[in-house]
């Protein structure tokens, strides 16, 4: 099959070569079939990728279908410079070599339609099956790398991922989808979308997912007769349900997102008993967001966002104290519950032609931030904490077109947290277009990550609170070069230097033996991203990327964990039959990574194949995917709270998916 791919590529190329050389002579029908890319997230308004003041990657719904991506994590592991680590409960995103185990993606800002998804206790953003929006409802994902992206979003330390959902117009009435995958995995979705005569646009959707998971998982750290020789039986199930609603009318857009996921944990995390089916986490996340946009007099624009958010993280852990003479089954509950309301106001003014100015303010009231830990029977309360906190921010940005081909973008943001105080962060970008197909971006920015409530106050046994934590800070210097060669071939090279200071790092207190978060550590992150992508009319496309990153611990000689020096990704999608059948392959290479125990995981290459078929009328589509096609055995470094040093990942798995639209 592999050997055939280039052959198909050549054939498709021969078939799809257009007869005319210029767009000017294309018919409207032809023009309407071209693929367009632009970006919203980098500076808050829609702009061309080359004019965004950051390094940007876009993944579209078409890519998601063709490459058979199952979750947001699947999408992100194919983004240049990104890699994903899974501990059989949560998926963790590593960015440019920085992905400390146990950070629940709190150093990126994950947004759905510009609404921040990170919660108000861990600042966690779930990218695996816990991401609350069905992947089929994603119109596009904008990935904006670097702290430079942080002007419009608080605490976007290493980047912003903005997931843009589909709208009513993208669906025609009722659509259903169903899939079957390895490990008795079933998924179903029903959606309704419409645009009404009175201007109302509506999308409603519901999804369920049920996965039995692996029947048996082997963990060598538990290989003893007392713990079933290291085999965890039926302890890997993963279920979720989700709802999504989007209604827009005039200048108003109302969005509702809700998802709840229940995962059984097979790894005996936090010292719980091995090979039990009762250790699990339930993660719920929802929000309602009302946006209003209006043009005011004299070229001013107003945009307002009012929202209500909630989240819950409920962990159930089975402990066995029989070895110490205690009961053999004690149920421990650990929870974090949060609710908050927010208001975000932006006013912008376009000066005729060459300048755009915007100012904004953001306010968030966290009126519930509860954490606790207790045993049910006999009831023992180990920890209980309730807080209320606020965050207020002001920002200003000016985009100045100095002359044709030269844009200066400057911004300043001030954040005030009731937990630690205020911080001011500037950024500047100079975008230079010396020739038509060449863009240089000179980027400078500062950002911070506020200590979250878990890090500040969590005080259950084995942990120690540290209310005096300060934010960790990062500066960025980045140079991006984007070069188009004859329209079909894009080369992007970017070199960066991020000094990270005051890193909030979990450490073990030598006296008490408790885990505690400290502003301990300075990291210097240097690297180079290199990517080329090519796409041709008719749908043939492919890309290659390579990233080198050097993450140096400047405060100690210990190797930084889960920090690969080399990452590579490749993808190729070939239209086998006239834009209706696509054969696609993507693969990821991750070099060796240090684990907490100081041992290295081995490098891996994992290829995934997908065959997609769309019907002539686009009424139905069918896809078949093979993930980790060569059954490569590989493992990810484990985080704190796990006895395992590494966590073995899934071998070869499949998925069959069917979608149908009722027009």
């Amino acid at each position: 099959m592999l050997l055939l791919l280039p052959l198909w590529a050549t054939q498709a190329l021969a078939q799809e070569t257009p007869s005319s050389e210029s767009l000017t002579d294309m018919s409207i029908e032809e023009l309407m079939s071209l693929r367009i890319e632009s970006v919203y997230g980098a500076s808050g308004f829609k702009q061309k990728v080359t004019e965004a003041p950051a390094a940007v990657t876009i993944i579209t719904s078409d890519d998601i279908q063709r490459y058979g991506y199952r979750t947001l994590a699947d999408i992100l592991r194919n983004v240049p410079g990104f890699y994903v680590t899974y501990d059989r409960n949560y998926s963790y995103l590593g960015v440019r070599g920085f992905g400390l185990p146990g950070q629940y993606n709190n150093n990126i800002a994950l947004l759905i339609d510009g609404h921040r998804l990170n919660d108000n206790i861990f600042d966690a953003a779930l990218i695996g099956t816990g991401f609350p929006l069905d992947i089929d409802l994603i119109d596009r994902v904008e990935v904006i790398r670097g702290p430079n992206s942080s002007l419009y979003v608080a605490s976007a330390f290493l980047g912003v991922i903005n997931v843009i959902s589909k709208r009513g117009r993208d669906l025609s009435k009722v659509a259903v989808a169903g899939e079957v995958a390895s490990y008795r995995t079933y998924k179903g979705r029903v959606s309704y979308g419409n645009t009404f005569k009175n201007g109302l646009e509506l999308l409603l959707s519901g999804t369920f997912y049920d996965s039995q998971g692996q029947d048996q998982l082997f963990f060598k750290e538990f290989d003893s007769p007392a713990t079933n020789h290291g085999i965890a039986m039926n302890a890997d199930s993963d279920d979720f349900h989700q709802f999504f609603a989007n209604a827009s009318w005039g200048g108003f857009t109302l969005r509702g997102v809700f998802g709840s996921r229940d995962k059984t944990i097979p790894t005996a995390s936090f010292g719980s008993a091995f090979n039990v089916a009762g250790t699990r986490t339930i993660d719920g996340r929802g929000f309602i967001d009302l946006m209003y946009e209006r043009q005011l007099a004299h070229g001013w624009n107003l945009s307002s966002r009012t929202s209500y958010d909630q989240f819950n993280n409920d962990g159930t852990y089975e402990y066995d104290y029989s070895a110490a003479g205690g009961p053999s089954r004690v149920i421990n509950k650990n929870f974090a519950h949060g609710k908050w309301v927010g208001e975000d106001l932006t006013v912008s003014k376009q000066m005729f032609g060459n300048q755009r100015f915007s100012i904004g303010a953001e306010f968030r009231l966290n009126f519930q931030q509860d954490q606790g830990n207790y045993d049910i029977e006999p009831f023992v309360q180990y920890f209980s904490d309730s807080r209320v906190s606020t965050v207020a921010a002001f920002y200003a940005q000016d985009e100045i077109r100095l002359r044709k081909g030269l844009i200066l973008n400057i911004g300043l943001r001030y954040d005030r947290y009731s937990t630690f105080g205020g911080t001011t962060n500037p950024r500047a970008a100079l975008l230079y277009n010396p020739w038509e197909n060449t863009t240089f971006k000179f980027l400078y920015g500062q950002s911070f990550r506020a200590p979250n409530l878990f890090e500040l106050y969590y005080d259950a046994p084995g942990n120690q609170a540290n209310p005096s934590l300060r934010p960790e800070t990062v500066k960025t210097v980045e140079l991006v070069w984007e070069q188009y060669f004859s329209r079909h071939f894009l080369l992007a090279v970017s070199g960066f230097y991020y000094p990270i200071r005051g890193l909030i790092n979990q450490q073990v207190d030598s006296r008490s033996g408790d885990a505690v978060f400290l502003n301990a550590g300075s990291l210097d992150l240097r690297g180079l991203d290199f990517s080329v992508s090519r796409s041709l009319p008719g749908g043939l496309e492919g890309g290659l990327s390579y990233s080198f990153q050097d993450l140096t611990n400047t405060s100690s000689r210990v190797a930084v964990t889960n920090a690969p020096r080399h990452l590579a990704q490749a993808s190729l999608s070939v239209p086998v039959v006239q834009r209706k059948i696509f054969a696609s392959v993507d693969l990821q290479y991750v070099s060796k990574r240090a684990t907490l125990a100081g041992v290295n995981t081995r490098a891996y290459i994992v290829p995934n194949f997908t065959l997609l078929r769309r019907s002539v009328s686009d009424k139905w589509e069918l896809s078949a995917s093979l993930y980790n096609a060569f059954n490569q055995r590989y493992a990810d470094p484990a985080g704190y709270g796990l006895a395992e040093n590494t966590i073995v990942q899934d071998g070869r798995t499949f998925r069959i998916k069917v979608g149908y639209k009722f027009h």
Partner: protein
Amino acid sequence: MNGPWHKRASSCIAFLMMVLWVFSSAPPRALALNGEDVEYPAKLAFLYNFAKFIEWPPGSYRSPNSPLVICIAGHDPFSAGTENELRTRTALGHAIEIRVFLATDTSSICSMVFIPVTERDQADNILRGLKGSNTLTVGEIEGFAARGGMINLTVEGNRLHFEINRLAAERAGFKISSKLFNLAKIVLDDERR
């Protein structure tokens, strides 16, 4: 930890194949029309198509030899290359001219005004100024057609589409070919405004 050698070898071969494909040179005529790079050249081609499939009201041209003038408001998003190429074409017998739209231009000079998204805050002012003229107004701004613009270019699902405010165009005396109506989304005036 690793699978048999042939699995790794196959992965490497797959990788190399992709490397080869991406770097192999395409046939010279295999012009790829993709990515963001294509958005504005394609939009300019749309303007050209509008010029070909729309009949201007009688008296719009001083003489049969007068050019069709496309005016760009504010920051010009089109490249000089694509603009120069369009200048070599004709539409319904009229040569095509492209120039900057000045805030003082209210009528007669421009056959068509394109208002880029960067000028969205000025769109209402420009539309007000052009009321009663024989100028076709084209935008790329959300809600532009509903606010009285005649044609609006939109991006939906990564493809270019366009909306026509039929009433606005017909009130000004334009005759739009049914071919355009068949491909466009027809938009009504937003009466709440």
